[in-house]
């Protein structure tokens, strides 16, 4: 027998992916893959799927194991060197808390979603890519759990992140986003998470968050970011490949894909509003403004992406002009929300100082001084009188994005935007045209949304009073509220004083 020649990468790849696929004979293919037709997407030839990375499972394991070793070495070193004492300020930890309680559980949801698509797409190429992404997302969740575990030793607001994800009112914003995607069919999930979130919007989440971590001395998060980066580029490539593949396969797919792009752009934009307040208000050392980030990563990068997709007939997402116009406002509006509701969150908020407000005036010359500085001046005055401004009640939520109805009319920042639909004799309220359209397209789906305020009134959240609900959320007494004077604040001061004292001796 002649010695077998060693296989080349391409050949090996073909064997380990396409070679694993076959047409079933005992069972009908439609029974084995029941989910990939009902959405109306037509695939004529699965073999036309271009595998952008040509990564086999064995090399995948090898790469990832190597990255894990490096990552855990840094995380261990961070813990041993008390890295938490080298961050810019303990206020920074609130950025981490928001990310770790709001996004990390969604990494897990993404893992589940990609495991599902990795099982249910008929073509073997996308199936393998989805399985790899599913494992990546699980890994991201795990590594972020280590960060939670470390910061939880020192700071409040992180300890019950699992329960909080399922119950807390503002965490229902990311949760409902992923619940919506995961209860869609596999193709919509791919457009929602693979394309809209991972391709169009991901840079707005990761770049500011990771640069923010670096600027503010959080090396454990920076390392996680680097470790995730090569995964992210693979995910982005999958996201762009799926949209091209669907549009090339059949002209009937275009209107369906366009609707999904419109929907998931708007849902993603609403979700990323949380990043806008991180960037403009919560990072003690600022990276850039939300408006600047939006210009770079959506207006420019997104614009050229959609220019490129024009040849398939795909248009810019509906209401993208409204999103760009809203960039002048959303960070201020959302931080206002956190400032006056922080006592019922797991986060601290604080009054921006004069230097910070001047930075905001400079970054938002059209809007900050006119519409938002006066709010802070009123609240500052009340703080000085010993009456820190809190919203002492429950508020109205948008039925689609589940954010409080805090956004303003596109052409009038002094009027709240109210939109409404009627379905089967009932009222439904929305914060924007985008959210209303999403509901109107599939009302049967959204009538079953678990809206946190509605659930409190229905008696499903521990009881009728605010302390009952906070106990149900598993918030401790020191998890939220004003930062100044909080346990986090005092701990930080004690660390700083210890350093100064030592230096003086």
């Amino acid at each position, binding site marked *: 027998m002649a010695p077998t020649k060693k296989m080349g990468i391409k050949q090996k790849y073909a064997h380990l992916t396409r070679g694993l696929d076959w047409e079933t004979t005992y069972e009908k293919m439609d029974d084995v893959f029941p989910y990939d037709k009902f959405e*109306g997407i037509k695939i004529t030839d699965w073999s036309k799927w271009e595998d952008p990375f040509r990564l086999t499972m064995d090399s995948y394991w090898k790469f990832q194991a190597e990255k894990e070793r490096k990552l855990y070495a840094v995380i261990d070193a961070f813990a041993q060197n008390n890295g938490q004492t080298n961050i810019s300020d303990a206020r920074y930890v609130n950025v981490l808390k928001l990310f770790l309680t709001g996004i990390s559980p969604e990494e897990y949801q993404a893992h589940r979603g990609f495991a599902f698509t990795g099982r249910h797409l008929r073509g073997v190429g996308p199936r393998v890519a989805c399985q790899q992404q599913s494992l990546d997302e699980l890994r991201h969740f795990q590594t972020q759990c280590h960060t939670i575990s470390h910061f939880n030793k020192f700071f409040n607001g992180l300890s019950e992140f699992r329960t909080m994800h399922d119950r807390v009112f503002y965490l229902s914003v990311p949760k409902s986003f992923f619940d919506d995607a995961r209860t869609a069919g596999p193709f919509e999930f791919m457009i929602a998470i693979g394309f809209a979130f991972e391709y169009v919007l991901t840079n707005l989440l990761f770049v500011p968050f990771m640069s923010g971590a670096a600027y503010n001395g959080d090396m454990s998060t920076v390392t996680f970011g680097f470790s995730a980066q090569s995964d992210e580029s693979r995910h982005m490539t999958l996201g762009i490949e799926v949209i091209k593949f669907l549009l090339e396969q059949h002209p009937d797919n275009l209107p369906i894909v366009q609707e999904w792009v419109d929907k998931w752009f708007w849902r993603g934009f609403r979700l990323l509003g949380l990043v806008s307040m991180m960037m403009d208000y919560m990072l003690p050392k600022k990276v850039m403004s939300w408006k600047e980030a939006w210009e770079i990563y959506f207006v420019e990068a997104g614009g050229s992406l959609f220019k490129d997709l024009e040849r398939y007939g795909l248009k810019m997402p509906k209401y993208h002009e409204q999103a760009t116009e809203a960039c002048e406002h959303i960070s201020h509006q959302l931080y206002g929300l956190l400032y006056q509701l922080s006592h019922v969150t797991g986060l601290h908020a604080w009054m921006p100082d004069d230097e910070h407000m001047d930075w905001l005036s400079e970054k938002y010359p059209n809007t900050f001084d006119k519409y938002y500085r006066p709010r802070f001046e*009123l609240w500052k005055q009340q703080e000085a009188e010993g009456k820190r401004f809190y919203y002492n*009640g429950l508020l109205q939520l948008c039925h689609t994005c589940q954010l409080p109805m805090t956004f303003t009319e596109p052409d009038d920042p002094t009027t709240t935007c109210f939109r409404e639909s009627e379905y089967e004799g009932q009222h439904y309220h929305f914060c924007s045209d985008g959210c209303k359209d999403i509901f109107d397209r599939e009302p049967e789906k959204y*009538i079953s949304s678990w809206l946190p305020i509605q659930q409190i009134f*229905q008696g499903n959240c521990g009881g009728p009073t605010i302390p009952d609900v906070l106990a149900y959320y598993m918030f401790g007494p020191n998890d939220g509220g004003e930062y100044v004077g909080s346990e986090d604040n005092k701990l930080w001061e004690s660390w700083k004083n210890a350093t100064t004292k030592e230096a003086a001796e």
Partner: protein
Amino acid sequence: MPVKAIVDNYKDFNPNRDLPEQYHGNLMVYLYWNKHMSFVAAMAAPLPPPTPFGALPEVAKSVYGTHPDFEKIDWSKVEWTLDGNPITPDFAKSIGEQGVRHKSLIRFTTPGLDGFEGKYV
């Protein structure tokens, strides 16, 4: 447009979680104070239909009472809308009798009071 689902009886799996009968006899009512943007959203309150309309200023006070304008409100001059339509409410009659239903939005304008320093804040 109906939802595209893998089953025909989609609605059996997807109950409405926001029906009036789930609120133990209360109406979920939204109250919004125009031109006072420092409050980040309309407040939501569970109110039984027999609640007199005249109780709404007290309900509003629980949230909006922290604003310096609130105590200056002359309730006889307040302008009201219910679900987008102007109304002249009878304070003695109940909200239920005057067309308030589950998730109605009641907005009120306080003439002459335009927020902190008149800046709609």
